[in-house]
């Protein structure tokens, strides 16, 4: 049962992501992306990480994507999306294609090389309590560092977006 759900969700994620990156209208691609993230969140839940799943929805779908939406709406990017009129040249998509092929090749090779056959992921459940325990005991320093980074990001975003920057930009224009 869980196996089928896994594959279904995987297909949803891949298709939604593919739709997302090919849309002309950024708002549409964000809708697809939210779908994809939803599928991913459920995959996380399936893999025994309910907290991560919840955060995937809260942070990615609920905050980051909304931020994207906000910026798109604020900048009033026209649905025609001026940037992508011309199609991409082969120089641009060729390395990606090769890289993708290589990556998947790597994985398949791994599959082949593994003498014990493919390892199965067992069902497993990490309770919020265990999670918090590990997070705040073994990774306390990392939390400090990451929180500092968030602080710097906030300050940086404020600095870049402050009124002074606008004025300067106006001068150049």
């Amino acid at each position, binding site marked *: 049962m869980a196996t089928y759900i896994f594959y279904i969700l995987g297909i949803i994620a891949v298709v939604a992501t593919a739709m997302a990156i090919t849309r002309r*209208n950024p*708002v*549409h691609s964000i809708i697809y992306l939210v779908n994809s993230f939803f599928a991913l969140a459920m995959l996380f839940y399936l893999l025994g990480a309910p907290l991560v799943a919840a955060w995937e929805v809260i942070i990615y*779908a*609920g905050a980051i994507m*909304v931020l994207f939406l906000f910026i798109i*709406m604020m900048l009033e990017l026209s649905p025609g999306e001026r940037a992508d009129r011309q199609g991409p040249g082969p120089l641009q998509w060729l390395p990606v294609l090769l890289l993708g092929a290589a990556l998947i090749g790597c994985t398949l090779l791994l599959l082949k090389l593994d003498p014990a056959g493919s390892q199965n992921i067992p069902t497993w459940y990490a*309770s919020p309590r265990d999670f918090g325990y590990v997070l705040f005991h073994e990774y306390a320093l990392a939390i400090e560092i990451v929180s500092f980074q968030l602080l710097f990001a906030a300050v940086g975003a404020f600095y870049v977006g402050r009124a002074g920057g606008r004025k300067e930009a106006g001068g150049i224009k």
Partner: protein
Amino acid sequence: MPEWLLITLLILAKLGLVFFVLLTLAAYLVLAERKILGRMQLRPGPNRVGPFGLMQPLADVIKLLTKEDFIPDQADKWLFMLAPGLAAVTALLTFAVVPFGPPLTLFGHEVPLVVCDLNIGVLFFLGLSSLAVYGMTLGGWASNSKYALLGAIRGLSQLISYELSMGLALVPVVMLARSFSLNDIVMAQADVPFALVNPLAFLIFLISIVAESKRIPFDLPEAENELVAGFHTEYSGMRFGLFFVGEYINLIILGSMLTVFFLGGWMGPFLPGIVWFSIKVLLVCFFFIWVRGTLPRLRYDQLMHFGWKILLPLSLLNVILTGAFLLWRQG
């Protein structure tokens, strides 16, 4: 009868019951709001359709259903049609984790009076409430109208801002209850509701959910005298109705969340749990209406300043204080 069938049936029954009750309640909440606001303004409110105007919701639904469903020419049709549904569904889904009564014994089974007792119910609620932004935002954007866009942007930034303090106000609750499950949180309030244990968190959460519900005094996304009708300016007929019903369902959800997190859920003496729960939720809903009848709308900059400069630091402080308190009590 096989076990799983029984369970499925029970869940379906609960689901149907909840949906039916919720939708009816939302419809009658509209009526109640109009009546109560009327009383506050020294007028009787709707009283023509049926006795005391009790059939008014039905009349409204009929009116909305028979109105012309209008889609603006330049609108993004796909999103325009999707958005109201999104708004209503995200509001409805949240009720899945709300425990509205103590477990019930039925057919020899213990049936918890909650559609689905997730052990991360708090996060489920936060996740869905963060998704509630989409319905409004996409609706406003897809309308391709200045008023709607402005309303949507306003609403978006307002909801994001107040979600932070809402989430942070829940952290002390989780700390006190030592669980993310709403059922456990209710259980933890058997003696004293958290509103008395941590009144600051209660206040912050209360203000935040008023802001989350986009109602007066935080109704900037749909400020009538500035933006016509804000994000749903271009909507008519049942699509508008969905937004409208979504808003009121959201109201009930937020009320029941407040009840669960701070007012002790279904805990209470003498009366059965479900009655206590309903009373509390209805009281909270009355409070919402009362606020609407009393306070004027904030200015946009005041709203943002209040959210980021007062509510957010206050909620952070509250988290720290609660942590310190718990640490101290442990010794």
